């Protein structure tokens, strides 16, 4: 029997903007449904309709039934218990200051008695492995732990349906996959229905029962993941680029048979496609240009925050040539962000030299005017104005420059909006515009792809390419291996307070076997240095052309 039934749901905001039109959707008990589409396609609006207290104000028609009963007829208490809702921001969702109290919060609100509460809280703490930090202050948890706590405190109410709105967008890749694994465990072990929107589609797609695709407030596809992939490919949809790497390689290379969804399936498919070692196994490496002048050089930089604390930077040495996109990858808390702060001069190293365009950082007057600027991890920390335009005017009076920069960052239509009304990707670009108004020659980016879906990533990469063409040197630290492999000129590995290796993406990721892209993991037993889906496709085609 259908658990949730959405019938002819149409909704428009008070401003008149239509958000959902004629949505029909049936979700069965225990299903794992992924809802996806570009940002602004109405995913969040649809999810919020599944819980009346979160439903936005506006004009609405149609009906939503939970177990055959209209949602509006259920009391708030029943809804709170039956439908759990996890939101994007791990930090703001937490209400209390202690982990144990947060776990109990929902139960307290439902008026549970002590005995039940005690049992449920204990049960949840064990199931989610929270025992070790049960008594801690919430402020001392990592982002991943916070989000897990949010999930656990909702599961303590034993909901039948779990709704998640981009739950991992603010997490690093390891914490994100931990979270998604826990979610899968809940779905398979407890049979809780899961409805999730997620831009990290690669990690979910293989395990979802159904992929519901939305565009412009409509459901445009509702099928099993494999069928969705085939449909997208054959219809030539632009949404195909969001598909997991194995899918893109399979269709891009003209594969036959069943489409692979995971790296494992992708490997097997490649093995079948090339039973004999193929003739071409490597792509030509870009010829190294003559060494350009150094935009940024670091020599043996050591830093720690306090006299007695451990060193965060332990002899960082790097040279960034002018006019390139230099990516630094590495685990969480390895000190990548601290390194950027040291370059900005906000952290003073106690040993070592940092030079920007040949001059020591601490001796450069007006470092932040026309020389160096940093885009922080959270774009919100830059917004002070009521509109984007107001924010940009804080930086410059030069209207021409402002208009040019806004156009470059593709935010011209958004100038009159409040920065907080923009989506994650738009906020990122607005913040970038603000940073670019200092006209830097060296741009530092701290996790620029965090919380951005793959379509916005492409736009963002396009902007970076234009900046590079203008001669701006870009240094970015990132967890996003796929993005770095595709767009960076140089990739460095940051580990244990140092930069360990630096190479071109192909050589760098080609040499790694774990810390590398999905395309490389899938193809490394056949090809040598294919690191993106495009690389694998190119090699497949080349080999096919050579074998008659």
């Amino acid at each position, binding site marked *: 029997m259908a658990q949730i039934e959405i019938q002819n749901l149409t909704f428009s905001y008070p401003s008149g903007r239509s958000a959902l039109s004629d949505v029909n959707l049936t979700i069965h008990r225990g299903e794992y449904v992924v809802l996806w589409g570009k940002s602004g396609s109405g995913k969040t609006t649809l999810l919020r309709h599944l*819980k009346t*207290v*979160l439903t936005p104000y506006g004009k609405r028609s149609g009906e939503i039934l939970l177990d055959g009963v209209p949602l509006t007829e259920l*009391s*708030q*208490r029943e809804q*709170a218990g039956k439908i*759990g*809702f996890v*939101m994007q*921001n791990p*930090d*703001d*969702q*937490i*209400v*209390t*200051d*202690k982990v*144990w*109290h947060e776990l*109990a*919060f*929902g*139960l*307290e*609100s*439902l*008026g*549970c*008695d*002590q005995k039940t*509460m*005690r049992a449920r*809280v204990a049960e949840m703490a064990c199931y989610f492995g929270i025992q070790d930090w049960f008594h801690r202050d919430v*402020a001392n948890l990592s982002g991943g732990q916070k989000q897990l706590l949010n999930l656990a405190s*909702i599961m303590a*109410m034993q909901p039948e349906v779990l709704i998640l709105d981009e739950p991992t967008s603010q997490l690093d890749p390891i914490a994100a996959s931990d979270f998604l694994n826990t979610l899968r465990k809940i779905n398979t072990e407890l049979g809780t229905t899961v409805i999730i929107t997620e831009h990290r589609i690669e990690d979910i797609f293989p395990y979802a029962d159904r992929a519901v695709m939305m565009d412009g407030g409509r459901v445009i596809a509702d099928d099993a993941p494999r069928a969705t992939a085939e449909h997208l490919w054959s219809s030539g949809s632009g949404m195909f680029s969001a598909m997991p790497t194995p899918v893109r390689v399979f269709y891009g290379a003209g594969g036959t048979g069943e489409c692979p969804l995971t790296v494992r399936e992708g490997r097997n498919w490649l093995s079948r496609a090339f039973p004999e070692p193929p003739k071409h196994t490597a792509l030509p490496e870009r010829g190294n240009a003559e060494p350009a002048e150094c935009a940024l050089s670091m020599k043996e930089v050591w830093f720690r925050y306090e006299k007695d604390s451990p060193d965060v930077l332990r002899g960082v040495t790097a040279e960034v040539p002018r006019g390139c996109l230099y990516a630094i990858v590495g685990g969480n808390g390895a000190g990548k962000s601290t390194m950027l*702060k040291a370059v900005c001069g*906000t952290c003073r190293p106690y040993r070592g030299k940092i030079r920007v365009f040949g001059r020591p950082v601490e001796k450069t007057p*007006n*470092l*932040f*005017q026309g020389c160096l*600027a*940093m885009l*922080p991890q*959270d774009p*919100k*920390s*830059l*917004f*002070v104005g009521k509109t984007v335009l107001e924010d940009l005017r*804080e930086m410059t009076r030069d209207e021409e420059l402002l208009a040019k920069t806004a156009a470059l960052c593709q935010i011209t239509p958004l100038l009159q909006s409040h*920065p*907080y009304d923009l989506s994650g990707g738009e906020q990122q670009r607005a913040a970038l515009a*603000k*940073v670019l108004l*200092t006209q830097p020659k060296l741009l*530092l980016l701290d996790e620029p792809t965090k919380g951005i879906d793959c379509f916005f990533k492409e736009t963002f990469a396009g902007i970076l390419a234009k900046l590079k063409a203008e001669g701006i040197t870009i240094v970015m630290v990132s967890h996003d291996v796929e993005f770095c492999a595709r767009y960076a000129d140089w990739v460095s590995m940051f580990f244990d307070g140092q930069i360990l290796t630096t190479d071109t993406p192909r050589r760098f990721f080609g040499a790694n076997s774990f810390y590398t892209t999905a395309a490389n993991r899938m193809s490394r037993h056949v090809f040598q240095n294919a690191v993106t889906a495009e690389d694998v496709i190119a090699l497949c085609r080349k080999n096919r052309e050579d074998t008659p």
Partner: protein
Amino acid sequence: MTSDAFSNRHPAVNFLFFLGAIGFAVLIQHPAYLIAGALGAAAYYLLLSGRKGWKRIGMLVPMFLLLTAVNPLFNTYGERVLFHVFGRPYTLEALLYGGAIAGVFVVMMLWFGCYNAVMTSDKFTSLFGNLIPALSLLLVMVLRMIPGFIRKAGQITLARRAIGLGAGEKNRDKIRHGMGVLSALTDWALEGSVVTGDSMRARGYGSGRRTSFQIYTMKRGDWCLLAVLMFLAAAVIAVSAMGATAAEFTPVLSIAPVSGIYALGFAAYCAYLLIPSVLHLKEELQWRRSRSKI
């Protein structure tokens, strides 16, 4: 503070103990009781904070001396004049009275130091959560928001500095910078509070009667300890009612003797004060013994 036998007891026991200890310290100015109070509080304070505790106690000594010496300058009652200051008599009685007041202050400071270490915010809120649920939730939320604000303000300052909008040298620039940070922080906080509100309502907040999760339960040992504390406190109150703690300093020095039944009251007071220290030391000894057996 790592572990302390008394802190691990139920918060209600902790709270009532401090209520008694601080209450007695404020109300009783009898020198013997003050000295006992100072010793008892200092002992527990040192057990709680270790070597760092000496520093604070060291700071209290000059404070004590100063307060003592200052009182006779304002209060000239008393029979035995020690000398004259600006033509006003400086009397022994006033000096002793100053000592008593300063003693009360020192003992209170020491007990509050212990209180802060033992009664953490979560203990306090869990204790009073049932009495005033709305207020205690508010308190918890404020406690959660303050560190968040501080962290975000730091983040904003750093982000602005990295695009050349840092606080300048001039006062005007500094004010402008401060306003910028504050404005960004307000927007951010407002947005965050909308999410928090959604998250609360999504978990049934405001859907009806609320209960409050008690992470602490009164065990048998807690009840026993509470009974002992109550008994001792009652004894002190009883002898005090009989006049055992009477102390007059000015104009004539008259202090009740500590003898007979009065001595029993004093003994009860000492026992009361030493309970946390004794519990702490007992546990420490137990651990030492069990460790030496291995």
